[in-house]
């Protein structure tokens, strides 16, 4: 094949990606940015940063951004920690069929079902509250701390941990086999490391280093989560995706530029994280 033909083939194979994903994505991000700076839209009056300023100075939007980032970080952190602990305490889990089947069921469980289960079990009138009432521990449903619409967004964290943990468990258990974790820990033990040192200084750093891109991906999924905060979140502050959707769907169309400013912020933050993710992957690929 000559050089010209090769270039033609390259161009044709790239075309659907640019036409069906690249262009719509560029259009979506461009439209969102243009709307947020007043270049288009019903109330457009030329370039302005007012909507961005009001969005950033608006306590409700600011609290929403802060809440989304902290909830996603806490959920991802807890899920990672639990997954690593499981693999380190049960090193052979990656070969256990029952474990793999259970993880597979967890992977197949939709986020909305996890949210529903949290509300059925840990909500104000949920099963735990009912059991507590039958045991004589409470007199009213309000006697237990409800995880639906709670002040600390604990319900969202619990549901997000449940959605994140199966993938992380699967990854860490397979990674343990790949890096020959058992042999590594045996070697560390013969060199005189204590059980705690083996876990904290050998297993943990290796697993965390290899999983950093997946952890970042998991954080991004939790940041954009919609169904879980919609069912379990409070009216104020709301998670970013719920707030954006509500502001866009409101009858008060004067709020739309602010909603687009929020979307643009989300797009920029996620794009930045995506670039970081791809760079990490490239570095890992070069190292292996």
């Amino acid at each position, binding site marked *: 094949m000559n050089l010209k033909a090769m270039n033609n083939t390259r161009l044709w194979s790239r075309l659907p990606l640019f036409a069906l994903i690249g262009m719509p994505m560029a259009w979506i991000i461009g439209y969102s940015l243009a709307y947020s700076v007043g270049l288009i839209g019903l109330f457009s009056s030329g370039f302005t940063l007012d909507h961005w300023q009001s969005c950033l100075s608006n306590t409700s939007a600011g609290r929403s951004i802060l809440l989304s980032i902290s909830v996603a970080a806490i959920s991802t952190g807890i899920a990672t920690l639990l997954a690593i602990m499981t693999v380190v305490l049960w090193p052979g889990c990656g070969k256990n069929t029952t474990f*793999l089947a259970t993880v597979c069921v967890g992977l197949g469980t939709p986020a909305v079902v996890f949210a529903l289960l949290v509300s059925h079990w840990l909500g104000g009138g949920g099963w735990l509250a009912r059991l507590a009432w039958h045991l004589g521990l409470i007199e009213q449903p309000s006697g237990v701390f409800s995880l639906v619409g709670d002040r600390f967004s604990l319900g969202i964290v619990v549901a997000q941990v449940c959605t994140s943990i199966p993938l992380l468990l699967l990854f860490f258990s397979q990674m343990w086999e790949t890096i020959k974790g058992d042999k590594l820990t045996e070697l560390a033990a013969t060199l005189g490391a204590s059980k705690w040192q083996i876990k904290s200084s050998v297993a943990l750093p290796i697993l965390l280093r290899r999983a950093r891109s997946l952890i970042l991906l998991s954080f991004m999924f939790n940041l954009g989560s919609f169904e879980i905060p919609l069912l379990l979140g409070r009216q104020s502050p709301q998670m970013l995706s719920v707030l954006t959707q509500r502001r866009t769907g409101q009858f008060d169309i004067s709020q739309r530029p602010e909603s687009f400013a929020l979307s643009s912020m989300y797009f920029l933050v996620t794009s930045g994280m995506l670039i970081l993710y791809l760079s990490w992957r490239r570095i890992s690929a070069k190292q292996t």
Partner: protein
Amino acid sequence: MQNKRKRTILILVLVFLPYASLLILSSGSGWSFPRLFPDRIDFAPWRTAWSGRYTLLMASLNTVVMSIVISLASTSLGLISGRALKRQESMLLLFVVYLPFVLSPVIVGTVLYDIESRLGIVSSILGVLIAQFMFAYAFATVFFYELWDSRIQRLEQLVQTLGGDSRTVWRHSILPSASGLIAVCLIQTSIFVWLDYGLVSALGGGNVPTVTLLLFSYLREASINQASQAAIVLLVGSVLACLTSAFILKRTRRRVGEQL
């Protein structure tokens, strides 16, 4: 040994007990405090699932049809694009295909709403399908890019060396070798459509009945029994699909191991 078995059973009960609550709640009507079980065990949600305007059956069928359309289109195009991406790794292209993969569908949906309303396809099945296709196509491309085997590439080279043209390469090396991956991708893209709520709610305008939309409408009406039933339908579909994918991947890996 017996202790180990008991521990496994205990863990399984703890993991699967929450799921049992869905079955219990969907088997009756009402669930007033402090009852542990529904007020009446009459299987009403299952008996009435087939009647009414937007029935669960109709929503399920509609979602299945949408899943089939999207999975076929996105997997076939994703196979070509994923292979091309693997052969000419470019950071920009990777960024482009990963973007929909990590973005929140509902936020993209809210921005797409304006554009689709200008095109006159908002609140229609076409508008939802176009948006879902973009996400599923990106997923399929990432899937084939990540899982494209060096063995398939070697087979392609072998067929080319023996004088095969591009059609022969596809027919005799790519399609037979990647059949397991194609099946898994079809299943995964179907799951994406089956579970999508963000795009359907943002762009469907209530005119595109899906199981997730029905589930949320039951929750808004505080019909806890029907909501549990819709959750079971969603869950069964996606867990079965996940288990099938795992089975196919395991079988493919074993076959590759035997061939090597």
